[in-house]
């Protein structure tokens, strides 16, 4: 049986976290969402540093939902680091942001983002996004082979 899908949500806004998690819950998909609230924490998680040393407790995600506007290290910096790190670069990174700025879009794609989504304003919008994401990245899309 396929193991539970693991999603890393990098998001500082508490209410957005709640909405996203609620949407995941509502879709009743069999997955686990791990939430970190800063860029630094996201990198700690991915690199297995500090409290994320235990890979059982903090396994590498099947995809990453990454906000751009984060306190401290920004989402774009996190993206760059991921895509420059060999053992992380094949993990699909989906930017989920409220920014439609051209510059953000360009930087994201230049740094190898796998998808760029704008946060919906309504809850039903969130539902649609989460459903599509899971369907696409967890079902349709065939991930790159894992190094491990």
């Amino acid at each position, binding site marked *: 049986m396929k193991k539970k899908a693991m999603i890393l949500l990098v998001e500082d806004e508490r209410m957005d976290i709640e909405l996203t998690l609620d949407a995941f819950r509502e879709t009743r998909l069999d997955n686990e969402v791990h939430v970190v609230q800063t860029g630094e924490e996201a990198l700690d998680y991915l690199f297995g540093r500090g409290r994320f040393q235990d890979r059982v407790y903090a396994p590498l995600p099947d995809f990453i939902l990454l906000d751009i506007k984060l306190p401290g290290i920004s989402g774009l910096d996190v993206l760059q680091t991921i895509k420059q790190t060999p053992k992380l670069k094949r993990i699909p990174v989906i930017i989920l942001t409220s*920014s439609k700025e051209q510059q953000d879009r360009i930087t994201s794609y230049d740094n190898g983002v796998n998808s760029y989504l704008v946060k919906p304003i309504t809850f039903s919008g969130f539902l649609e996004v989460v459903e599509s994401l899971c369907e696409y990245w967890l079902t349709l899309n065939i991930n790159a082979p894992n190094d491990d």
Partner: protein
Amino acid sequence: MSLYLEFIHNVALLVALSTLYSLIARHWRNSLLWPRLVTGLLFGIVAGVGMNLPLHYAPGIIYDGRSIILTLAGLFAGAGGAGVAALIAGAYRFFLGGIGVWAGLATIVGCALVGLGARRLCKNRPESMNLFALYALGLVSHLVMLACQLFLPWPVGVAAIARIWLPVMLIFPLATLVLGQLMINEQRRIITERELGESEEKFSKAFRLSPLLFSITTQAEGRFVDVNQVFSEFTGYARDELLGRTTTEMQFWADPDGRAQMLERLRTQGRVTGLEMPTRLRSGELRQLLFAAEAITLQGEACLLSVSVDISQRLQSEAALKQARDFAENLIATANVIFVELDSSGAVVRLNAAAEEITGYRQSELQGHNWFLTLVPKKSYPYVWEEFTKITERGLFPKVFENPILTKSGAEHYIVWQNKLLHNADGELHTISFGIDITERRQAEEELRQLAAELELRVAQRTAELFEANQELQSFVYSVSHDLRAPLRAISGFAEIIGRRHRQNLNPEGQHYFDNIIEASQRMGELITDLLTYSRLGREGVPARLVDLSGLMAEVLAGFERESDQAEIIVQPVLPVVWGTSTLLFQIFVNLLDNALKYHCREGVVRIEVRAGASSAGWSVIEVADNGLGIAPELQDKIFNLFQRLHNRDDYPGTGIGLAMVKKAAALLGGSVGVKSEPGQGSVFWVRLPTKSPEERIKGGMA
């Protein structure tokens, strides 16, 4: 006794000679030879005749007046005359013969030579000789005559000299003196006569031909005795009309005292000179005459010879000249223009009050001093001096010339000059210069320049500040809208969750208010989206290119699929190609169509037409026409402003950003927008867009 008789005969002969001489001497002219030859002939003949009236001294030894005659022939008739006389006398003596031939001939030649010598001594003017000179001549010529007796055979000659020397030396020189004096008197009389005649001729010619007015009047009554042609022409009276009439009768003197004044002058000063008097012509015209007059006596009557000249014109031109000079002087003195006259060395000749005022020097302080060394600052001296020498040496004038001068107080003034070269009364070349003090004007100009530069700088600064502020404002709007999205998302997100899961727990009032929250958050979402779009316009940095509006319009219409079911949207199949970015063009037409669809009438089918309007070189116009509500003329300007709404939101929802977005997008593309509309008649929105790049537009000269 007979010797004395013979002597008297001789004297008579000599007197006759002098009378005959006077007849010939009248015709004497320096240029004529024949009167001299005739004189010589006369003297020769008379000498011959004299030899027939000899004083017989001894047989064959005769003495006569020939020595006197030939001496005087030499003196009065010159070489030609004396030669003829000597020839005739000599020939006759030779014919008489005797032992005294040679002595006689020698006497003839010797005396003639002495006479010629005397003529030479008195420079051919025998009439200038006085009595002593004549007597001395007589003595010399008869000493020669006595000496010639030595040609007589020895010892006859010596004996003869011893015998005759006393009577000869007593009588003959005196005879020479008397006869010579007679002839001289005659000659003088002839000369005087001739001179008198010449002077009369001169006077009458002058009287006739002179351009001056001549008149002779009697002193007693002022009766005209004679006038010249010029006088008669001048007065307008014929000569005959004037002669015999008095000046009073002719009303000649314009001043009744004229004649009296003239006579008074004559009486006190002996003559009249430089007297100016007005006179009246026949025409009644008055003329000023300048008189000179002297008294003359004509036929025993005291008369007045007056010469006059018409000086009316001279007076007039003098007056005009004086007036012109006075005018110029006054102008120079009073004009508020600097005037300086310099000689060719640059020394000051004179200056006017304005020049004194500006330089601080009196004219007397500067006169004779070099203007340039005194007043031009050292730094400017070389070029100013060069300019001056150009004027004086080559006559080259700068149209205007500007230079600083250093006043007595040390202040620097800028003067702009205009120069001219003139010859003064002595014929020296002087420059005259007129100057205006432009120091203040220059300062004002300088201040103006500085102000302008400052202003420009300030404008640039302010523009930069404005640009910065605008940038700030734009990013502010952007960040605010952006940051508003997060809470809005939370509101609408959680409201939606409540709506889904907990709505039934609310009573009808709660449900209604809850719906209001949902609606408000939706509207806020639209507003934020539109604001973000608006502020994002033009910030994308995508380069403009040629865009085919036909293709773009198809994309735009695709977004209106749902609305186009209830409306009739007609798009002209071929639309122009314009210069722009598809994002901006997209915004323009999306918003125009959205606008047209939104503000429709309650009844009837919504009709929208998209078509090309009248284009011009380099520009295209696209129109979006609807049959909607229309817009009142006074509102047509406002509708393109941000957040400008004309209708109640409940009737016609909208954010008030759409048309502002159209305007901004069109402006970003270099174009413009507008509307033609009447309330109830629908509206035609037009967009004017360039069809060429800005570079091409500039090159093509299109505005």
